[in-house]
């Protein structure tokens, strides 16, 4: 079963790449862009048939490796 995870920077944490993307978009003429925050997307294929159980495992993976909880939040889709 494939479980999808999005990892994003917490609010207030500096995102220099997001800032550079926003400035580039503004420079390209997309003047309505106020802010861009960059994150990560993971697709984890877990050997598990029960979705709830798979998600519990992926949550553990997020806490231990996929996200750094000092600066990042994760969301299991």
């Amino acid at each position, binding site marked *: 079963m494939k479980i999808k995870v999005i990892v994003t920077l917490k609010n207030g*944490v*500096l995102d*220099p*790449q997001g800032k*550079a993307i926003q400035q580039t978009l503004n420079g390209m003429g997309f003047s309505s862009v106020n802010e861009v925050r960059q994150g990560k997307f993971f697709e984890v294929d877990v050997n598990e048939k029960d979705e709830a159980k798979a998600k519990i495992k992926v949550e553990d993976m997020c806490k231990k*490796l*996929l996200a*750094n909880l*000092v*600066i990042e939040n994760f969301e299991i889709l």
Partner: protein
Amino acid sequence: MKSAVIIFPGSNCDRDMDVALKKFGFKNEMVWHDDEQLPKSDLIVLPGGFSYGDYLRCGSIAGKSKIIKSVVDFAAKGGLVLGICNGFQILTETGLLPGVLQQNKNIEFICKNVFVKVNNKNNKYFNSIDKDILELHIAHNEGNYFCTSDELKMLKDNDLVAVSYCNEKGEVNEKSNPNGALQNIAGIFNKEKNILGMMPHPERMIDKYLSGEDGSIFFKNLLNNFK
């Protein structure tokens, strides 16, 4: 005075560190990350570099290596653990030190000499160093130290900010901050001060003709603790 330098796939300052440690009298051994046992050592060094190509987050994958469990045990018994640059990133990712090293504020790889102020000499890394300001080298893309306000308070209350970026006169200000690090933090200790993580590379400053010798001062002092 025995030391060991751990090599991860992508480490690139491991041999510089080996040369530096041996130059000042350490009997150094190199240890592969996939080993489980550390040799009997007084000092363990996690060197600089780009372990696992900085995949996921700098230091995050190296932080799960087999050898790390032994490093954690060694540190828990009071052994000295020094993490330089990527080694500092690995220490934060393993939780041995608080906080995280984020991408530099200006999104540039920074490679230059900097000055750092030694804030605390009540430890084995800086105890008999006469100078308060050291000139060392930095080379990193992710050296922008960040931690929560609670962690910062803990670091301050316990005097654990080991070194701060400053100018030649020792003034710690925004202008002397190369990478946007919180309060110019360049290196920190754990509570017991046996673990030191810092972005600057002392091993690159051990030759008066090539670079400068403030790194020599660091290693000589470290060695003196084991004489």
